[in-house]
């Protein structure tokens, strides 16, 4: 290194160190931020249940409409098979009540018909259709996931 460089090289060195300093501080901050996000992102509560055993299919005769409160759903035995409608309102998530001709949400007044289609109210989408499967042994399983 030529020591007789003069003021120009001194400036370059100072700038370089400043850049290096800002770089390491920036890197430290980034590392810290990533760590913080991972730290805060941890979920301690166990994930909610998404599979529900409903019992033997014979418990639900054709044409029946059975509420399944623990899954927040209603089970239908249609001619084509078993389906379920989710009682979680598609508007903002309140639990919908069953009424005479269909469903009514107590929170903001959405109304649905017996098939879950929107009749009225702030909700734009119909009630969610949930999958129901039958095991070889004739047991019904409801999937809310």
């Amino acid at each position: 290194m030529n020591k007789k460089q003069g003021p120009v090289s001194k400036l370059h060195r100072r700038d370089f160190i400043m850049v290096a300093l800002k770089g390491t501080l920036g890197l430290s901050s980034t590392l810290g931020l990533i760590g913080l996000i991972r730290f805060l992102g941890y979920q301690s509560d166990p994930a909610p249940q998404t599979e529900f055993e409903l019992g033997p299919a014979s418990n639900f005769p054709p044409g029946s409409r059975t509420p399944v409160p623990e899954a927040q759903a209603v089970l239908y035995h249609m001619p084509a098979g078993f389906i379920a409608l989710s009682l979680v309102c598609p508007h903002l998530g309140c639990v919908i009540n069953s009424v005479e001709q269909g469903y009514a949400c107590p929170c903001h007044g959405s109304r649905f018909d017996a098939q879950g289609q929107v009749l009225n109210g702030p909700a734009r989408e119909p009630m969610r259709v949930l999958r129901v499967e039958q095991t070889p042994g004739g047991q019904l399983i409801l999937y809310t996931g």
Partner: protein
Amino acid sequence: MKANPTRPSFFHHLHPPTIPAPQARFRYTLGAGGLSVYLVLLLVITGILEMFFYVPSPGEAAESVQTLAFLVPYGWLVRNLHYWAAQLLVVVAIIHLLRVVFTGAYAPPRRFNYLLGLALLLLSLLLDFTGYVLRWDEGVQWALVAGTNLVKSIPILGEGLYRLVVGGTQPGPAALIRFYAWHIFGLTLALVGVGAWHLFRVRRDGGIAVPPPEARRDASRISRFELVRREALAAILATAVLIVVASILPAPIAPPIREGSPLAAEARPPWFFLWVQQLLKWGDPFIFGVLIPVMVIVLLAGIPYWLPNPRPDELGRWFPAGNRAASLLLVILVIILLLLTILALSPLSTFP
């Protein structure tokens, strides 16, 4: 780092425009006061992060600590940082106290600020103690039982004070939530308040203790910008060192306190109260566990008022001739406390 000298930032404005260079040196102050401030900041940040996971209920407290220590990404780091910063704060505060006495920096007009500093030391010890209890595991049994019963031993006020501290007739859910409230809010608020007052008084009393201008051998000064740069350096270094320590040495953890939890054969208080446990082996809990520690505090508080102060021209250096008595008293006190601590750790110390 390119600060405008005519428009200093808030942070720069907190510092005086210049301070005397000799007293700004690390070998004079050891940076202990500033490091204490930084450690409090680190403790508040890591403490807030822990609050996202800690549950202050006896059934869940220790398990939430285990969640932090083993399951949350970098939870072990946050917890260990919090623990080591807390223990380091107590040590650094004591070093700061030693420095202040050994340099005579408590002399008027700084006597009241010295008392504020003592109060901060006490608050730090109480914060360390309440935080320790929040672990609610088998390691904290001494603190829970013996520590709270010490309060009960105070005549006249003891029963009432105990009910205030514990929130019931024995340590349980009420005590835990109270210790939690004190730790995260009550004591922290007091620490920040008294701390702000302490820092304000440092400036109002004329900054770091120096001899009057005519007695100064070296009249050079450093700017506030240089001072902040030095503080930044110390803060970054302290953080790096603490991260390394936190990565290597884990904070203590033990099985949770449950129904039928065994009280360990040798129940131990936290390290900074070992000297009290040793005293308690010698007799009446009120005298040895409350009165004598209070006398130690009173003795420390009385140094600026009862012992000779250094002359103004002696300030700004270590061990001035004018306050030899104070330095000697402090050294003797420290040695006694160290001896008591060592004795507490050895099994030979219980008299038959």
